[in-house]
């Protein structure tokens, strides 16, 4: 299945891209996808523990089961205001 992945704020500087598509097997969890992108973009791994993860417009837990076409966002702590 294909997952769209977006990186926000300085995570896009870490990866050199704002958006990418990742092909992964069915049954991939959000945590598994996160590990996968950390392997692909090693600077992201340094911020792994403080990374926020969303699918679409909602935050999701590590064990969230991804579906084909999901839009996943990875980003650092938010700073609105």
């Amino acid at each position: 299945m294909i997952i769209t992945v977006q990186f926000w704020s300085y995570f896009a500087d870490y990866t050199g891209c704002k958006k990418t598509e990742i092909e992964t097997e069915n049954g991939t969890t959000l945590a598994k996808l996160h590990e996968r992108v950390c392997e692909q973009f090693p600077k992201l791994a340094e911020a792994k523990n403080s990374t926020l993860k969303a699918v679409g417009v909602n935050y999701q837990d590590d064990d969230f089961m991804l579906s084909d076409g999901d839009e996943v966002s990875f980003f650092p702590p938010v700073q609105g205001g």
Partner: protein
Amino acid sequence: MKTQLTISIDPIDEAALVKRREMGDGMGAVVCFSGVVRGREGHASITAIDYEAHEEMARHQFGLIFEAIEQRWPVDSVRLVHRLGLVPVNEPSLWVEVIAPHRAEAFAACQFLIEEMKQKVPIWKKPLPA
């Protein structure tokens, strides 16, 4: 509860927002907060902050916070404006207004809204050095 959410690169015109205020029947308290860009971030002088948002998600997360407010306090109206893009020093990046029957709940809801925003709403800032 009436809600109005504006996320935009336009400057925040507080006087105009105040003029457009509509007081519901029986409402006795209005609390407004403006968050203004300061000339320093940590130890560095800056000239502006560049705000970026995951806008669709930000709107959804603000909506969840508004729902939480409605369940918790008898608030009649919430208006919130967050500016994106370059916000120069001394200009507001955030404006919030909460209208409620009494002041305690207006203050509580306004502070809750800002604290929740700072935990959950996907907006980030990049300071521009002087």
